[in-house]
């Protein structure tokens, strides 16, 4: 009995240790490295910052601590490029998230309300594009959106347009690309939330005099809010830092933090500034997430 409990405790410890080790190795350590670089001074060298730790002089670590500087963070505030990138990224991500939600909700609802044997095949269809390369799918959008692309050619051929729409290389194209790419991330949590809704609740609402639209507004929608929030986070957070879509579909007007970071790292070789920008982005994203988590904890049923 006692022995069994001991074994169980060790077992539970092992089960917990695995994800924690994973998080420490692949999340916390890289994060600490980036944080350290963001506090270093930029130099023209290899690596392009002044290292804190030297294998040949381990003891020098303490004496070098005073070299840490907030210069990179100060730099962020002095160049309006960063502020613009952040604001632009947040706006594009927010708009994309909203559009994704509006498109994904009917999909998720239709799948959740279809006959049981159809649900999994329909979900697979929604995820099917993931089986081809993300890069190729975004490239495909270039062919669709550019001035002499499929969409413009078709619209002109049909006589609906006389001049091609300039969508490619604009923020609009970026939003389209993000909405397209992240749609499944929205559909899945929405589907889960809608699928587990008790159908008796919908009947109860109808029984109490609610026509279908009221049933949706007063029961279906509020009960799916956890799915809405989860889906929005799963789209919004990666969309803010999105690099590939703006790089391929965006134009000169497109200023997103992902591209700015890339430029700092690889073109300007200013690693401390790029790291600082990344840390600020992280803080910007973790803030709302922490608020949401706190809210979740509050609304959890107290038992």
């Amino acid at each position, binding site marked *: 009995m006692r022995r069994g409990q001991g074994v169980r405790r060790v077992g539970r410890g092992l089960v917990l240790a695995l994800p924690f080790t994973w998080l420490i190795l692949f999340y916390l350590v890289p994060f600490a490295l980036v944080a350290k670089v963001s506090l270093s001074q930029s130099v023209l060298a290899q690596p392009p910052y002044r290292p804190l730790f030297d294998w040949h002089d381990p003891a020098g670590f303490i004496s070098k601590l005073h070299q840490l500087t907030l210069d990179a963070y100060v730099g962020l505030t002095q160049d309006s490029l960063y502020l613009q990138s952040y604001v632009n990224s947040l706006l594009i991500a927010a708009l994309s998230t909203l559009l994704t939600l509006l498109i994904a909700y009917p999909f998720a609802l239709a799948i959740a309300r279809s006959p049981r044997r159809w649900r999994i095949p329909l979900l697979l269809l929604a995820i099917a594009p993931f089986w081809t390369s993300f890069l190729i799918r975004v490239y495909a959008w270039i062919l669709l959106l550019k001035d002499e692309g499929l969409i413009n050619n078709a619209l002109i051929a049909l006589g609906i347009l006389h001049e091609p729409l300039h969508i490619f290389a604009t923020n609009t194209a970026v939003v389209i690309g993000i909405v397209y790419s992240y749609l499944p991330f929205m559909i899945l949590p929405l589907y889960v939330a809608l699928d587990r809704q008790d159908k*008796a609740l919908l*009947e*109860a*609402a*109808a*029984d*109490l*005099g*609610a026509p279908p639209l009221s049933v949706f507004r007063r029961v279906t929608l509020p009960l799916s809010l956890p799915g809405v929030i989860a889906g929005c986070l799963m789209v919004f957070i990666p969309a803010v830092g999105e690099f590939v879509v703006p790089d391929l579909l965006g134009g000169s007007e497109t200023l997103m933090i992902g591209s700015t970071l890339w430029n700092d790292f690889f073109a300007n070789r200013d690693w401390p500034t790029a790291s600082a920008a990344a840390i600020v982005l992280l803080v910007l994203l973790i803030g709302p997430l922490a608020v949401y988590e706190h809210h979740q904890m509050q609304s959890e*049923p107290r038992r």
Partner: protein
Amino acid sequence: MGPAEADAGPIVRIEGLCKSFGAVRAVDDLSLAIEQGEFFALLGPSGCGKTSLLRMIAGFDTPDQGRIFIGGKDMTEVPPHRRPVNMMFQSYALFPHMTVAQNIGFGLVQQRMSKPDIAVRVGEMLRLVQLEGLERRRPDQLSGGQKQRVALARALARRPSILLLDEPMAALDKNLREETQMELAALQRRLKTTFIVVTHDQREAMVLSQRMAIMRDGRFEQIGTPADIYERPTNRYVAEFMGDINLLKGRVLGHENGTSKIATEAGPASVAASRDYAAGTEILFALRPERIRVNPARSAASNDPNVFAGRISGRSYRGETTLFEIELASGTNIRSLRQNDDQRTANDVDLGAEVSVQFSADAGIVLPL
């Protein structure tokens, strides 16, 4: 049909209702009239079609054939939100994101009742089900019994002309169930609203309802008052469904002086005349265990009708009652239930004792074979 005529008729009238799910005929050509103010029970085992019938009255399912009239109006095709009917769900189906008060007021908001009026009606309903003070709780903060009351209050808040109850006690434990059944029956008498309850528990149906229908395979086996159905079942299925019963094979010998003579496999019996069966008809002779008395063997006069000799072959003491299993001289087994209204006699008949069983002429029920 004018409104005056509509008022005079039954509150629910069902004509030739049929509903199939795939190859299964859930409801098979049912016709029924339920009067205003009745407490009506649909009783049957699971899968007998009672819930399908209830769901069609509520409007959740449409019948394949037949019509449903509510208050004299044809409501067969009317969607649930436009029927003057409310339902209390087996799972209660309380809205988890709303408080008790919001749940009860849900249907009133839908009626565009003003906020103060809603508050008044919700207060009224909370008093009715004795839940004052819980209006701000959420369903997950309520006990099973409280949830059930909220569901009841919510379904009654719109003052429906018919309240449908789908297995209303299924989720309650036994003690609470009996108490709640009495309360529900009293509530219905006070409100005079028509209640239609679906249940698989024959005791519950008897306690609650004034009239009931026994269902099997989508059809009604018998419709009547609880006493009618218990005392005068029309067939073996109903007799067995309503409670423990002894069934003896027999043949009608003849009728004389208001009694019918019957030769059963256990011996001769006489019952109050049942002229439905001509002399010579093979029948089942049914006896409820509580109508059979166990006597010490010596009191048995050998050839009296309605007295069979036997030996106690089983005895289960249940506190308020004792069930005896008696092996009759003919080899048939029969069960007798004795009320233990006297402590001394509760266990005075031993296993293996020679006894005779006796029943009165109105105890026997003649059923078709």
